[in-house]
């Protein structure tokens, strides 16, 4: 195999579809006579529905059905999550209202206009109860979440933190908070549900996990899993919110079953703040202590995050503190408080994004107490092995990230004093932080097939939520098959394809990529076998080791004039195609290693001294994430993560009215995300890293690490620029006045 596609900055194979508007997102699948459904949301946060008047809604022309808890079919298991991504859903099963915006009715009509209007006419009367949403007031009622199977425990303790603190030279004790943030992918959650008879259901759904969705829905509707088909060819961003089957998917299916029609349900932007998850608020207490030379002697990280009354999701913010630095005494804990709110969920780098803000801010504070360069402090405490799992890293090239990033950024030009750098009227600050994210792998399957025309088709369930799955899988498959990418067609997003995990936790490339690679290799091996052992042909009689594959042609390594094309091999042997399906498991060597990607952010901010407006003016970020499968799409993932970090640092917060627990900031004018003008160009350094243990393809995943540390790097830069330490995100200007 000489020419390799993996690693090259190949243009996205689905690029053409995306720029011409012909990539079909879920709500855009063509369905004749589709009925439109609109959800009616509760307008209280706690209590009971005492009356529902749907008369006026039903009289709107074109209305097909109005479903409420009084007439909706029972959905067993709606409140019984079984998998990690499952959520308790509210699908018109009773009169209870548990949070603002909870679905209380569903209107189905012939047009969107009729359905929306009718939905606005449904009148609910409630017996409301006092709802609580102020987390700080509930913190005394914090409880420890149950450890999820296969996940790190909520608490950890190594060494003797109290003894260590007694001897420390410098110490920081601080409380950091992060707000509730909504994912807000630009494509709103959408489902088209088509019941075919009673026993078959097709869902065109904007989801990060077609198989998880199939499992949850088939159980809830008592259907055979193979009779539920989930199709999701394009997803307009997910970031975690589309990793679970939320209420609207069930409702769309219920409506299709009840009306015997195909039903399209696209939720509104306002509803994106109601029942599709969010990153929960956290309150994090951190103690960091060091000896005089900067050696960390103690780290304590106590996290409390908020969840709903009926479901348990804990933001694992302190996990990063357990493993990032070589510190002998580390104690961490996670607690939950219940509020009258909807259930939170995984959000881009769940735990790491919020937790690294606290940890990496505390380290910055410590560096000032020690009068030590923040980068030097990190290098001083570099962990050569994973201090938490007590295992070697499968690979770790963080030191190169620090040095290359710092050099490109010009970190050495940083004047140590806060408020010491200016550009005209602007205050200038430099900040840095470390990034890390676990490299996961789950079981995944893939199928590869070479057809008699010499082209290949490769299939794996999976999803492409913008991460570039289509493209990198095409590249991996092409290399494994010994073909050029132009002849390889990779398809995904259909539960009739081989089973794969959820696109979350940065595991798609590693899990699906490993399966695709092995499936491709298996087909190639078969082809070579046929060429050397099958009927005739120029390579017949050679040993398989003597044959190479290149651009769909088998060649003898000794005598390159001897070659045999895939078409010829298949034709001669009377075959239409050769295919192999591979079920790939976690790579065995992973057990003996700690697997993480690492990186370092160097960020410059400018702060208006009068107004406290913060502008991020320069970003240099270096990452070591194993094999980079496609430099173009990987760079995009890093950039995207950093833009998210910028939003987390400066803009994003969902606010509730403390008296009603209702969301106040529920659109994109009130919930600010970064716009073009907020985002500078970025310098992304991809540090070479070879990792033989992490998985079959040596890639660590690049989807989430970009955001990790950015909150702290910006906060640290703001401190450097202004001398003001902001410990509560986002850093809105009022906090700097």
């Amino acid at each position, binding site marked *: 195999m000489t020419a390799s596609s993996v690693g090259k900055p190949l*243009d996205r194979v*689905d*690029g053409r579809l995306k*720029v*011409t*508007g*012909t990539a079909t*997102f879920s709500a855009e699948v*063509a*369905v*004749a*006579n*589709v009925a439109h459904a609109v959800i009616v949301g509760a307008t209280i946060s706690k209590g009971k529905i005492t009356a529902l008047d749907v008369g006026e809604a*039903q*009289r*709107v*022309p074109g209305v*097909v*059905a*109005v479903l409420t808890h009084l*007439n909706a079919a029972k959905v067993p298991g709606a409140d019984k999550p079984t998998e990690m991504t499952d959520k308790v859903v509210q699908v018109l099963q009773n009169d209870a209202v548990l949070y603002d915006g909870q679905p209380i009715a569903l209107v189905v009509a*012939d047009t969107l*206009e009729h359905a929306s209007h009718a939905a606005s006419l449904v009148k609910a009367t409630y017996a409301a109860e006092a709802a609580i949403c102020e987390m700080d007031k509930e913190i005394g009622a914090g409880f420890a979440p149950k450890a999820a199977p296969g996940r790190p425990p909520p608490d950890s303790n190594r060494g003797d933190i109290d003894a260590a603190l007694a001897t420390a030279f410098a110490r920081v004790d601080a409380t950091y908070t992060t707000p509730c943030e909504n994912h*807000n*992918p*630009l*494509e*709103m959650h959408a489902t*088209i549900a088509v019941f*075919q*008879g*009673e*026993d*078959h259901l*097709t869902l065109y759904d904007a989801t990060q996990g077609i198989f998880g969705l199939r499992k949850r829905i088939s159980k809830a509707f008592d259907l055979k899993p193979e009779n539920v088909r989930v*199709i999701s060819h394009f997803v*307009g*961003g997910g970031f975690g919110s589309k990793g679970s089957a939320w209420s609207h998917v069930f409702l769309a299916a219920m409506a299709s079953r*009840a*009306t*015997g*029609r*195909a039903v399209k349900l*696209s939720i509104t*932007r306002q509803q994106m703040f109601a029942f599709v998850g969010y990153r929960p608020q956290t309150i994090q207490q951190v103690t960091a202590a060091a000896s005089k030379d900067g050696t960390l002697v103690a780290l304590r990280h106590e996290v409390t995050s908020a969840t709903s009354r009926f479901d348990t999701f804990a933001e694992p913010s302190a996990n990063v503190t357990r493993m990032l630095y070589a510190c002998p005494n580390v104690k961490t804990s996670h607690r939950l408080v219940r509020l009258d709110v909807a259930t939170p969920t995984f959000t881009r780098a769940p735990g790491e994004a919020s937790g690294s803000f606290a940890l990496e801010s505390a380290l910055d504070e410590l560096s000032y107490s020690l009068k030590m360069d923040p980068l030097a402090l990190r290098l001083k405490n570099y962990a050569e092995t994973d201090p938490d799992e007590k295992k070697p890293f499968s690979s770790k090239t963080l030191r190169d990230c620090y040095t290359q990033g710092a050099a490109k950024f010009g970190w050495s030009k940083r004047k140590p004093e806060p408020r010491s750098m200016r550009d005209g009227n602007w205050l200038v600050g430099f900040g840095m932080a470390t990034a890390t994210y676990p490299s996961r792998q789950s079981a995944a399957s893939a199928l590869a097939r070479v057809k008699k025309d010499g082209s290949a088709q490769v299939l794996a369930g999976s999803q492409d939520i*913008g991460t570039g799955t289509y493209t990198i899988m095409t590249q991996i498959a092409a290399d494994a098959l010994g073909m050029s990418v132009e002849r390889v067609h990779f398809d995904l997003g*259909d539960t009739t394809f081989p089973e794969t995990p959820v696109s979350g936790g940065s595991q798609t490339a590693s899990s699906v990529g490993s399966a695709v690679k092995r499936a491709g290799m298996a087909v190639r091996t078969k082809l070579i076998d046929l060429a050397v052992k099958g009927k005739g042909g120029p390579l017949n009689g050679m040993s398989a080791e003597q044959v190479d594959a290149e651009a769909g042609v088998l060649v003898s390594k000794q005598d390159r004039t001897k070659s045999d094309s895939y078409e010829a091999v298949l034709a001669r042997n009377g075959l239409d195609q050769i295919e192999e399906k591979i079920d790939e498991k976690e790579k065995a060597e992973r057990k003996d290693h700690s697997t993480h990607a690492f990186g370092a952010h160097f960020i410059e901010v400018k702060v208006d001294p009068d107004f406290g407006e913060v502008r991020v003016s320069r970003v240099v970020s270096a990452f070591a994430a194993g094999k980079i499968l496609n430099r173009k799409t990987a760079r*995009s*993932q890093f*950039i*995207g*993560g950093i*833009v*998210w970090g910028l939003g987390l640092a400066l803009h994003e917060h969902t606010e509730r009215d403390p008296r009603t627990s209702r969301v106040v900031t529920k*659109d*994109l004018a009130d919930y600010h995300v*970064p*716009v*073009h*003008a907020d985002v500078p160009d970025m310098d992304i350094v991809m540090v070479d890293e070879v990792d033989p243990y992490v998985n079959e393809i040596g890639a660590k995943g690049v989807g989430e690490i970009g955001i990790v540390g950015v909150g702290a790097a910006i906060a640290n830069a703001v401190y450097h620029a202004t001398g003001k330490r902001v410990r509560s995100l986002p850093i809105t200007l009022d906090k700097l006045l």
Partner: protein
Amino acid sequence: MTHAIAVGASAPDFTLRSLSASALALRALRGRPVVLAFADTFSIGGANADLLREIRAHLRGLGAVLVVLAKSAVFYFRPDDDVEAFDDASPELAREVRDIATAYGCERAMPALFVVDSEGVVRFARRNVDIQGAGGVEGALVAALDAAGRAVLSPKRSLLLTRREWVVTGLVAGFILAFVDGCRDNGAPSPMPPAPGASAAPPPLPAPPGSGDIDVTLNVNGTDRQVRIDPRVSLLDAVRERLALPGTKKGCDHGQCGACTVLVDGMRVNACLTLAIATQAPWAKITTIEGLATGENLHPLQRAFIAEDGFQCGYCTPGQIMSALGMLTEGHLKNDADIREQMSGNICRCGAYPNIVAAIAGVRARKEV
């Protein structure tokens, strides 16, 4: 002896034994609705991509699969899979198809189309489908599918529902009218018992004068397109839901994201806050993302977005590209540094901003727009 299979009757079972690969039996498809189409000749070659898309759309709408029985070939259509063609024309196949057609009473009335529900009951029957002016047999099939969809699905109550579900949705009203309506031209209707608790549809709400559906012409991408809409329909929903141009995206429906950006008379606007009725021809000319490429030739901005990876999920992309085009032609862009401000009406939640700016700056530098 021919007898017409009536709506409400059981669909005669059949098994096509002559098919070489595998036998195709109606009974084996039981459990989901099936559309049966009979034609003297049918060829998938005649079904171009658009037609195929339409057939699939109809099958999704009906929740059905489609079996086309022609004397020379049999085709099995499912909405989300490749069409299976059994086209090894043999005298046995022709005989089998003729026999089945006889059982359905349409051997002399082709093309004919039947919708059979999941329990094997015929819900719609149409014989002698007009093929003149319908674009041949294939076009006629789509027209018949459309008629079938309207008949069994609209307006209140699907006739494809089986008995169990009738009970579940007892509060849904107005199905009797629909039933009668749907079957009017299909021979003898066989009334279903009403669901418990169901009542006739209440009279619709009074609408303000002049607010009914109106026929308007929209000039989109240089073509006049007729749509029948209610004045509430936004330009965004008109192109997405009525004109099958879903390239323009909805990200907020309130002017807060730019995903819906289109050009109206060359100026970029938010289609979500624009009434379709107010941009009808000849008042306005609309350009959407679907109108940029000429055939296979992409617009320079489209090429640049691909080359610079100016997107991730691609959902904001049509809006970004249309906005960039508007920006470059409206003439207020001062310099490259100004691109960020001038593009700030287009949110990219994936954060592809630096690459989007690079793509636009490249097009600008090369003076391609």
